[in-house]
C-alpha cells in the first residue's frame, strides 16, 4: 500500500529538490546580471591598487616578492607575467597555468584582461570558482622599464570553505525542518483518517457506537462530524429495521400459528357443527389478515425505496372515490352501515394506484370501526388552491392520547383488537399523502365519531 506517510515524504523531498534547482537558477541569473560585473570591477580595482602601491614605492626585488606574498596571503592567487611570458606565482597554485591569447595582450598591448568574461561556455557561475589562470583579471604595469602583467583572482578556497559550510548547513536545516514538519503534518492528517477507517470497519460489523474523538475546525473535522451524524442515523435506522422485522415476523407468525392450530383441531372427527364453523372462520380471518399484511408490506417497502417511481397522471378523483365505495357496498349492506357522499367533480394529478390505497384504507377503517346502523360521510371539495377530503364515521372514536401515534407503523389503538388490523394501513396512508404533498388530520370524539381530513395542494392543471 502506498501510505500517505510515504507519499508525503516523497512529495516533500521532491519539492525540496525542485526548490533548490529553482533557487540555484535564480541565483545564477542574478549573478550573471549583477554580481559578475561587480566582482570583475572589484578585482580590477584591487589589481590596480596593488600596482599603484608597487609603482609608488620603489621596492627592491626581495621586498617586491614579499609584498606580493603578503597580498597573496590576504587571500589572492597572483601570477606575474613579463614580456617574455615568464611567469611568477604567489599564493595557492593554479590548476592550469596556460595563458589565453587575450591575456597575452595585457603585456603586449597594455590592455586590461577580464578572464571571467570568457566563461560563458562554462555552466553558469561555477566558472567563477575554477582554479585556472585564465579565470583571473589581468592589469598591465611597468617596473624598472620592464612591462609586466599582474593577474589576480581571489583565493576561493580560502573564502569559500566558510560560505560553503554555512550554505550546506542552511540547506540541510531547511530540508530537515521541512521533512520533519511534513511528517508531523502527515501524522496529524492521517491519524483521524486511520480512526475513521477503524470506525467504518465497526459500522460494517453493525457496531454503531464507535467513539470518534476528532475535534478539528477543518474539512476533516467536518467529515468526522457528518460521520458521527451518519452513525447516529444508521443506529436509528438499524433499530427501526430490527423492530420492524420483529414486528413483521410476529405478525406473520401469529396468524400462521392460529391457522395451523385450528386446522389441526378440524381434523378431529368428533366435532360439533358449531365448533367446526367457529374454527373455519378463525382460519378464514387469519388468512385474510395475512393476505392484507403481505399486500400492505409490499406497498410500504416499495414506498420506502427512497425515490418511489410515482406514476403521475391526471384523473377524475371523484370517479375514483365512487369506484372504491362501489367496491365495499356489499360490506355496507352486510354491516348495516349507511353511507352518503358529496363529491364535487375534481380533476387531480397524482399516482392513482397509490391514492386508491389511501381511500381504500380510510373507507375500510370507517366500516371496520363503525357500529351496526352507523353511518359514514365522505366529501370532496376543491377550490383554487386546495383539494379537501373528509372521511367521517360514527364509530368508536380514537382516544386522544393515541392520535400522535396513529400513523406509526404497527401501531394499533386497541392492542387486543388485532384480528382484522395490521397496524400498517394508516402509516401507508400517511406516507402516500405526504408523497403527494398533502396533509392528514384527525378529529375524534371517543365513543362517537372520527373524522379524517385530508388536504392536497390543487394541481395547476392549466399547465399541462
Amino acid at each position: 500500500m502506498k501510505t500517505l506517510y510515504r507519499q508525503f515524504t516523497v512529495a516533500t523531498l521532491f519539492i525540496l529538490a525542485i526548490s533548490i534547482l529553482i533557487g540555484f537558477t535564480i541565483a545564477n541569473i542574478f549573478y550573471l546580471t549583477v554580481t559578475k560585473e561587480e566582482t570583475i570591477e572589484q578585482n580590477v580595482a584591487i589589481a590596480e591598487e596593488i600596482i599603484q602601491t608597487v609603482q609608488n614605492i620603489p621596492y627592491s626585488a626581495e621586498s617586491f616578492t614579499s609584498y606580493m606574498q603578503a597580498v597573496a596571503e590576504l587571500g589572492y592567487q597572483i601570477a606575474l607575467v613579463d614580456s617574455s611570458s615568464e611567469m611568477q606565482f604567489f599564493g595557492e597554485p593554479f590548476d592550469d597555468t596556460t595563458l589565453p591569447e587575450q591575456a597575452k595582450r595585457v603585456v603586449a598591448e597594455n590592455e586590461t584582461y577580464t578572464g571571467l568574461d570568457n566563461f560563458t561556455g562554462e555552466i553558469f557561475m561555477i566558472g567563477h570558482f575554477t582554479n585556472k589562470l585564465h579565470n583571473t583579471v589581468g592589469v598591465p604595469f611597468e617596473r624598472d622599464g620592464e612591462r609586466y602583467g599582474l593577474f589576480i583572482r581571489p583565493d576561493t578556497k580560502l573564502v569559500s570553505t566558510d560560505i560553503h559550510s554555512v550554505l550546506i548547513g542552511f540547506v540541510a536545516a531547511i530540508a530537515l525542518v521541512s521533512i520533519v514538519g511534513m511528517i508531523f503534518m502527515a501524522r496529524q492528517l492521517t491519524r483521524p483518517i486511520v480512526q475513521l477507517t477503524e470506525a467504518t470497519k465497526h459500522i460494517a460489523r453493525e457496531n454503531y457506537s464507535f467513539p470518534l474523538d476528532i475535534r478539528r475546525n477543518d474539512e476533516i473535522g467536518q467529515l468526522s462530524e457528518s460521520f458521527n451524524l451518519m452513525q447516529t442515523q444508521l443506529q436509528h435506522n438499524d433499530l427501526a429495521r430490527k423492530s420492524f422485522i420483529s414486528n413483521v415476523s410476529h405478525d406473520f407468525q401469529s396468524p400462521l400459528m392460529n391457522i395451523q392450530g385450528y386446522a389441526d383441531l378440524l381434523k378431529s372427527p368428533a366435532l360439533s357443527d358449531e365448533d367446526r364453523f367457529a374454527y373455519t372462520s378463525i382460519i378464514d380471518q387469519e388468512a385474510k389478515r395475512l393476505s392484507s399484511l403481505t399486500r400492505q408490506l409490499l406497498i410500504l417497502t416499495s414506498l420506502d425505496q427512497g425515490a418511489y417511481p410515482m406514476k403521475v397522471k391526471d384523473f377524475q378523483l371523484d370517479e375514483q372515490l365512487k369506484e372504491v365505495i362501489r367496491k365495499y357496498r356489499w360490506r355496507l349492506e352486510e354491516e348495516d352501515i349507511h353511507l352518503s357522499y358529496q363529491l364535487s367533480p375534481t380533476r387531480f394529478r397524482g399516482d392513482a394506484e397509490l391514492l386508491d390505497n389511501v381511500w381504500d384504507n380510510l373507507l375500510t377503517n370507517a366500516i371496520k370501526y363503525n357500529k351496526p346502523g352507523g353511518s359514514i360521510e365522505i366529501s370532496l371539495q376543491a377550490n383554487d388552491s386546495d383539494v379537501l377530503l373528509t372521511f367521517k364515521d360514527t364509530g368508536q372514536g380514537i382516544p386522544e392520547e393515541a392520535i400522535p401515534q396513529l400513523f406509526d407503523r404497527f401501531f394499533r389503538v386497541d392492542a387486543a383488537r388485532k384480528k382484522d388490523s395490521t397496524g400498517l394501513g394508516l402509516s401507508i396512508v400517511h406516507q402516500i399523502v405526504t408523497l403527494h404533498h398533502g396533509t392528514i388530520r384527525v378529529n375524534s370524539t371517543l365513543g362517537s365519531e372520527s373524522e379524517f381530513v385530508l388536504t392536497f395542494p390543487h394541481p395547476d392543471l392549466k399547465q399541462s
Partner: protein
Amino acid sequence: MKVLVVDDDSYIQQLVAIHLGKASYTVFKADDAEQALRLLEDQHVDLAIVDVMMPGMDGFELTRILTQDLGIPVILLTAKSQLEDKEKGFLSGTEDYIVKPFEPKELLFRVAVVLRRSERAVQEHLQAGNLSINRRNFELAIGNETVILPLKEFEILSLLVSRANLATPRGLLMDYVWGEDHEGSEMTLNTHINRIRDRLKRYGATVEIHTLRGIGYKLEALK
C-alpha cells in the same frame, strides 16, 4: 337463475361456482371461450362471469359476443394491473366488472345487482322532488348529496318514486322487493319504510311518504 362461470384457473372457477351454488344459483362452468360458446348452444343462462385473461379468445371478445349477439349480461373479472381494461370492458358491452382479488361476498352482491337490473326493465333514471334515482348504479341523490341505501330500501324507494302520487299497495311492494314467495313480513316492511323516512328527512328531501291505512303507501313531492 343460471350463471355461467368462464375461467381457465380451475381453483377460482370452482370457488366462484361453490359460492354461487350456495346462494342457490344454478352454475355452469367453462375453461375457455370456445367451451363456453359450445355450452351456450343448447343452454340458456341469465348471467356470465368471465375472466379477462384466458388462452385463446380473451374475455373481452367473449363478452362482446355474449352481450351483443346473445343478450347475456356479463361480469368481467380483471386483475388490478389491468385497471385501464375497464374502459375496454365497457366498450364491449359488459354490465359490470370486479377487480381480483375479491371477496366472494362482493361477487355475490354484484351478481344480485346485475340480475335485478336485467330482471326489472324499469326506467334507469327516476325523479321526484329533489330525489334522483339512478337504477344502473343503485345510487340515490338528494340535492347534491349522494346516499348509498341498503338494496332493499333502495328497491322500495324506487318503486314508490316510480309510482309517485299514486297509492302503492303493500302487497305490490312485498312482491317487488322480496319476490312472490314473501320471505319478509309486513313488520319488516314497516321498519324499512321508517328508516327510509328518517333518511329522507335527514338529507332534506322534498318528498314525503304517507301511510294509507289498510292499503299501503304513497310518495308525494312537497310543494
